[in-house]
């Protein structure tokens, strides 16, 4: 008998993917809760790893008619010492573990593993890019061309040959244009024909056919079709993220670590929204420089603190490389809040006049030492300045963070999806 061997290994895998997505969609609220909970006490690196979550089975149950209780009879293997008529003590747990042991998950909780993407998706799902005053900028669109069927008019370069020819063919068939073969056949017959009456007939026929062929052109102007294009708005698909950080002596490793976590989250988040995300690292003491990531977080630096220097640097970079019309610009500034008092005026001016108008979003993150409760401390000079600017209506977001665990809540708070778009405090 014939036997077939099929190698299925190369078939696309994960046939269950769709079922899995359906399951996640259905359990979305529950899974999301679980994701939040499990991310509270995770490091950033781990949050991107995915991992196991446990959800309660509300609404995910698949009930069946099950029976329980009553008299039970069972036959078991491995008798050692029992004889007929013996009485055995009941096990303490009255339920009896024989019945439902197979599906131990059926009762309360359900445990499974989320992939990295699923985890991040769910984690960031209810976050949204903030709806700022510069809404128009956020939706800045460039236009692209897209095929959109055919048109009867257009530029000769856009003639669609295949469409034109097929329409011409349809018309010729419909109008019964004499075919070239038919005419040639008749001419051949005419050449060989000796009979006069038949010749006359043939000649007349040929004449008529040729006249008709002339009346019905091979390709008529009405056949011609042009490819049509439509311009479609394309959202700007690229974003640049400016990371500004104070690296003066007062910033401890812990503070840098907090800032880094925040930047990473922001990066992951932007990455989900934009095809292309660039990062610019600007560190500053009393002067600012653009550096690579490693130097940014780990390079030693010391000196005083002039926030305005970083803003100047950012402004220069924006002007040189990131035209606001083409780029979505995000900026996050991390600092311990120190700034030279004399610098406040310039910083405020730069921010309101230069930086904020071109940014989609500007967040200020004030990082503190782990042990300190920032709430008890007097506001720092930078915080006071920014708060004043914000009260004047500048679209600034600012938060204070001193513990790792606070990063997620703060981030989520910043990007929380708001029901009414203008509600921002």
């Amino acid at each position: 008998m014939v036997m077939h061997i099929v190698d299925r290994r190369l078939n696309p895998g994960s046939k269950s993917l769709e079922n899995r997505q359906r399951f996640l969609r259905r359990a979305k609220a529950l899974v999301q809760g679980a994701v939040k909970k499990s991310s509270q006490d995770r490091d950033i690196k781990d949050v991107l790893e995915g991992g196991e979550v446990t959800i309660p089975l509300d609404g995910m149950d698949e009930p069946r008619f099950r029976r329980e209780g009553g008299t039970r009879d069972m036959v078991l293997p491995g008798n050692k010492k029992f004889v007929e008529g013996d009485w055995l003590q009941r096990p303490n747990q009255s339920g009896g573990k024989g019945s439902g042991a197979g599906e131990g998950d059926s009762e309360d909780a359900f445990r499974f593993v989320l992939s990295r993407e699923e985890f991040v998706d769910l984690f960031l799902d209810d976050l949204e890019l903030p709806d700022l005053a510069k809404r128009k900028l956020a939706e800045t669109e460039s236009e692209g061309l897209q095929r959109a069927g055919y048109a009867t008019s257009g530029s000769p370069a856009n003639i669609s040959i295949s469409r034109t020819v097929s329409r011409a063919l349809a018309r010729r068939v419909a109008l019964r244009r004499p075919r070239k073969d038919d005419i040639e056949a008749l001419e051949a017959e005419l050449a060989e024909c000796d009979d006069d009456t038949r010749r006359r007939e043939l000649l007349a026929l040929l004449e008529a056919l040729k006249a008709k062929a002339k009346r019905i052109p091979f390709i008529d102007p009405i056949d011609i079709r042009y490819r049509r294009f439509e311009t479609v708005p394309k959202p700007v698909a690229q974003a640049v993220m400016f990371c500004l950080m104070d690296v003066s002596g007062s910033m401890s490793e812990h503070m840098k670590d907090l800032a880094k976590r925040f930047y990473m989250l922001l990066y992951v988040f932007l990455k989900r929204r934009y095809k292309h995300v660039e990062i610019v690292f600007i560190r500053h003491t009393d002067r600012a420089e653009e550096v690579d990531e490693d130097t940014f977080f780990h390079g030693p630096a010391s000196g005083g603190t002039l926030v305005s220097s970083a803003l100047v640097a950012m402004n220069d970079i924006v002007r040189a490389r990131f035209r606001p019309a083409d780029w979505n610009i995000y900026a996050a500034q991390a600092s311990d809040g120190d700034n030279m008092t004399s610098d406040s005026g310039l910083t405020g001016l730069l921010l309101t006049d230069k930086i904020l108008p071109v940014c989609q979003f500007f967040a200020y993150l004030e990082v503190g030492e782990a042990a300190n409760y920032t709430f008890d401390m007097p506001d720092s000079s930078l915080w006071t300045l920014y708060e004043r600017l914000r009260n004047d209506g500048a679209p600034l977001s600012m938060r204070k963070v001193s513990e790792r665990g606070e990063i997620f809540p703060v981030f989520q708070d910043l990007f929380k999806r708001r029901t009414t778009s203008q509600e921002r405090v």
Partner: protein
Amino acid sequence: MGSSGGRLFEGADWDFQTLQRVHDACEKIARTELGLDVYPNQIEVITAEQMLDAYSSVGMPLFYKHWSFGKQFAFQEASYRKGLMGLAYEIVINSSPCISYLMEENTATMQTLVIAHAAFGHNHFFKNNYLFKQWTDAEGILDYLEFAKGYIAACEDRHGRETVERTIDAAHALMSHGVDRYPGKKILDLRAEEKRAGERRQHEESVFNDLWRTVPNTKHKSKATLTVERRRALLGLPQENILYFLEKTAPRLAPWQRELIRIVRHIAQYFYPQGQTKVMNEGTATYVHYRIMSRLHQQGRITDGNFLEFLQSHTNVVFQPEFDDRRYSGFNPYALGFAMMQDIERIVKNPEDEDRDWFPDIAGKGDVEGVLREIWSNYRDESFINQFLSPALIRRFRMFHLHDDPAESQGIKVDAIHDERGYRRVRRELARQYDVGFVDANIEVMDVDLDGDRRLMLRHTTVKGAQLNETDARRVLQHLADLWSYDVALTEVDGTDKVLKEYVVSPRAAAVAA
């Protein structure tokens, strides 16, 4: 390399030629020595990931989409990754051609074992056992699943995924009560089923259910004509196939919903024989692979090393932990089935006096394969154990019967053990454990209150005092009420018709609106 003499393979590696050689060698033994009659084989090599995929669609190569399969997949994947669960070496599908999935990780010896086990053992059983013949359509199942998948996807496009999911959820909850337990008039033909689905839909859209027209305004007239007996006869009551009843008579279901219920019902029916023949099916396959592997070894076509490797996995498969072992979770169908097949072989070949008393029909008959083939064709687990579990085997497994009556304060009673007085009782009780009549709750549709509020009345006849778990029962009844669109009442009665408990569930508003 000679046609029968050479080694089938060397070492653990294999390729497709190896599989072909192995298959041919197994086939020769299966046909000539064991006299097996199988569907054509199709062997598919898959990866571990694909095996996991297959797990979550009940082992079928294609299946409709539903979140519950995703849930199962998530659960299985988690336990697989943690190492709690190994994967099966193979999955075999009752179809023609008979499809066996082989994992690519298996060694050559394991592939041989799996081919002998699935492609010949299970395959023969599928083709010849009366239950499978009666209830499944091996030729049509894959096409039908294809149709079901497409149909459900189309319904989702047309009516929205949530509505469709709700209907399937409800049908799934009732799946265990969506099978015909007794052979009907016609043999299942899934291909015709698919073709007729379209016609049926059109037909049903144009036909009005006469019964329901009798309800609203001509009350006195309908009362006169529709006596209880007549009504129940018209509705085909009592009916234990609840899904069938809903499909045919639920008053407010859309035609596509009826078709969905029908699909779930057909699939439940397709799997129904598998639940009743676990011991026999695995016993047959294990016995067949054991015979084939031993013969291949005897012929020198596999080496001693291969054979030892085989014996090791074979022993794992037929391991039966004892009741007080931590690993114990009921009888291992492979162990029990294989032991019984071997025991029958012993009885047929060299019976003892005891066997002659107990099995006069087969003891000493000599034709082992003939007797086994006959048994494989005509029994299911319950009747098989009831008929062929021998005292020798009861002794070997040291089986004993426990009777646990909650009313008895002394504890659990040892009712019978593996001795002269106990053999028959042990055997009867073990057979009962495999009786579908006892495994599923006996729930029937009794009546519909056509004159009043169209309440659907069900009855659960309890056996040995076991009642339904209340939480689950309410949930299932909720699904049932949603499909029925009016109230549903379930009464639990004992053998003497004494009412133990009553449930009444109303449909959810969303379901009625849909």
